[in-house]
């Protein structure tokens, strides 16, 4: 077990190294470079460009640049400049990512909570009412949702729940951009909470919807699996009430497999956040990522991609460990 975790962590580190090399190589493979805007500006003297080039270490060879970056990157706790400086302005990348991390975290937690709290009960209920009209409808609906790109969901919700709802009722229910209103600081306590919810709802439900579809389908299948098992027949045959059978015998076992799915899904949610944050102008890491790619700003791109990579590696490990933790029949070797 201990050996297994160590081995997985070693693989994880190899994955992260590969991820950083691939990203660095991709970001540096295009003709353009981050100082293009400076170079094309006739009012910037050659000296300034020279100075900037040295400041960012761009005069060194590519492999050297990568090694310098990697050596500094892992020393994040030693000094505040470890992740380099942004090419757009000269802010510390660490600071930029730190500012944006909270936004993504808020979005992700809400979306995940929504997905778990809606998707899982939905799946259970569908399984209990198998082949009912509700079950059939929801199965079809989740299939459709699962086949819909996240940006279509996001735009659709923006147009229907923000634009048209406001047009028809005259009341502003939801905001379509940003994390809070400009006058947020002047609001009362409840005003602030209301404002936060109004901003948070649409982006997080767009991320959550696809997961809700996935979880409910999965939970339905796993619940049905348990409902048809021998030990459940025994429990029924003993004369236990339907309630006891479902809650104590069926639910407990049917909830095990979804834990793995949810921990694996967090990685996919992070990917979805990149798109959703762009659509809702949400100040998170995802939007930082897209703008940084557009600006050829590889220190920022690498920082964000590495954070996502670490999360994916950790979540994959947790998912695999949760198998064995929840099901004693699984062995690691």
């Amino acid at each position, binding site marked *: 077990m201990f050996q297994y975790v160590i081995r997985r962590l070693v*693989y*994880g580190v*190899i*994955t992260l190294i*590969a*991820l950083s090399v*691939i*990203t660095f190589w*991709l*970001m540096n*493979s*295009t*003709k*353009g470079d981050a100082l293009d805007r400076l170079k094309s500006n006739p009012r910037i003297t050659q000296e300034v460009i020279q100075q900037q080039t040295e400041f960012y270490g761009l005069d060194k060879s590519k492999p050297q640049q990568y090694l310098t970056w990697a050596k500094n990157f892992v020393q994040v706790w030693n000094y505040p400049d470890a992740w380099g400086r942004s090419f757009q302005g000269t802010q510390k990348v660490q600071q930029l990512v730190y500012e944006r991390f909270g936004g993504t975290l808020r979005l992700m937690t809400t979306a995940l909570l929504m997905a778990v709290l809606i998707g899982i009960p939905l799946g259970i209920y569908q399984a209990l009412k198998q082949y009912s009209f509700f079950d*059939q409808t929801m*199965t*079809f609906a989740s*299939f*459709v949702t*699962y*086949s*819909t*790109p*996240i*940006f*279509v969901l996001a*735009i*659709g919700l*923006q*147009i229907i729940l923000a*634009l048209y709802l406001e*047009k028809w009722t005259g009341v502003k229910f939801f905001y*379509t951009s940003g994390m809070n209103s400009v006058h947020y600081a002047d609001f009362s306590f409840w005003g602030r909470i209301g404002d936060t919810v109004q901003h948070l709802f649409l982006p997080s439900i767009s991320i959550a919807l696809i997961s809700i579809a996935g979880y409910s389908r999965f939970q339905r299948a796993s619940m049905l699996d348990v409902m048809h098992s021998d030990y459940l027949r025994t429990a029924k045959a003993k004369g236990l009430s339907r309630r006891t059978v479902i809650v104590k015998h069926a639910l407990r076992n049917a909830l095990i497999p979804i834990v793995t799915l949810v921990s694996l899904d967090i*990685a*996919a949610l*992070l*990917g*979805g956040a*990149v*798109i959703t944050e*762009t*659509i809702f102008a949400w100040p998170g890491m995802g939007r930082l*990522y*897209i703008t940084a*790619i*557009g600006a050829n700003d590889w220190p920022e*791109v690498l920082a*964000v*991609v590495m954070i*996502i*990579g670490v999360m*994916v*590696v950790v979540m*994959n490990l947790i998912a695999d460990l949760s198998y064995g933790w929840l099901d004693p029949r699984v062995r690691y070797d």
Partner: protein
Amino acid sequence: MTEPSAGPGADDRSLDLAEGISVEPLTQWRLFRTRFVRHRLAMVSVVVLGIIVGAVLFADALPLANPVRGLSDSTGRLVNLLSPRRAYWFGTDDLGRDLFSRVIYGGRTSLTVAGLTGLMVAVFGTVVGAVAGYYGGWIDTVLMRFTDLILSLPLLPVAIVAAASLREIFQGHEAIALAVLLGTLLWGSLARIVRAEFLSLREKEFVESARASGARDRRIIFRHILPNALSPIIVNTTLVIGSAIILEAALSFLGFGVRPPTPAWGQMAADGGRVAVTGSGAWWFVVFPSAALIVTVLAVNFLGDGLRDALDPTQTIERR
């Protein structure tokens, strides 16, 4: 799969003859067909996909407006953002281009990328999985470590950064660049499935007998084992094509897909969304490209579902 002399069909006939009842032998193909036809949504999907693929393939022969040039009316005014009408079934976009034509030509982009991706995934995933599963040992270890590495990369972030630089390198050939990129990122799960199939199939008696009669490795892999592992390959490739359409759309939505004015569904939905959220009321601009995306992906996924039900009888058939 289509040979009537092999498989359970032949045994059925001898059994029936022994009992004196004459029954048409059921070939594997017929068994597959009956089960597939029973999946109603999959059948509908085949028709829908047939229409979409046909329209996309023969787009040049159809009487469509130029998808990349704005149209003007008789007075020379640009006909931008017209609602759907007889002349423009899906209306026109903000630059006065016929949306119906753009949706069809956009499908050409999306389906080319998805189709090429599917082909790459099928070939690469099958070969890697087959070699790893058949030979085992260090070859298996090396190949599967590599597969795991690809599978543990964060898909969308890597796809975005790769698309952003590949479209600079392959200017004018973005569709092929996207297909190569998506193919490279998506073959992992198929390789794992094929490997698992090969691991169990290589121990079967028919493989042993083939080897005993002197067949070489390549023949055993391609003639004896691969046909038996075809079902999961077909099903998985179909589902990969579905996710490739979504990924391509996401990339072109973010502006990392084919270069405008060449249409692609994701890029059109992005433009349409921008126009719609300003409150212009031009719903058709965002609705039709999005609907094309949803319908196509849905049809591909239902097709995959139907194929799984039909090709793998051990799985319970769930009616929808």
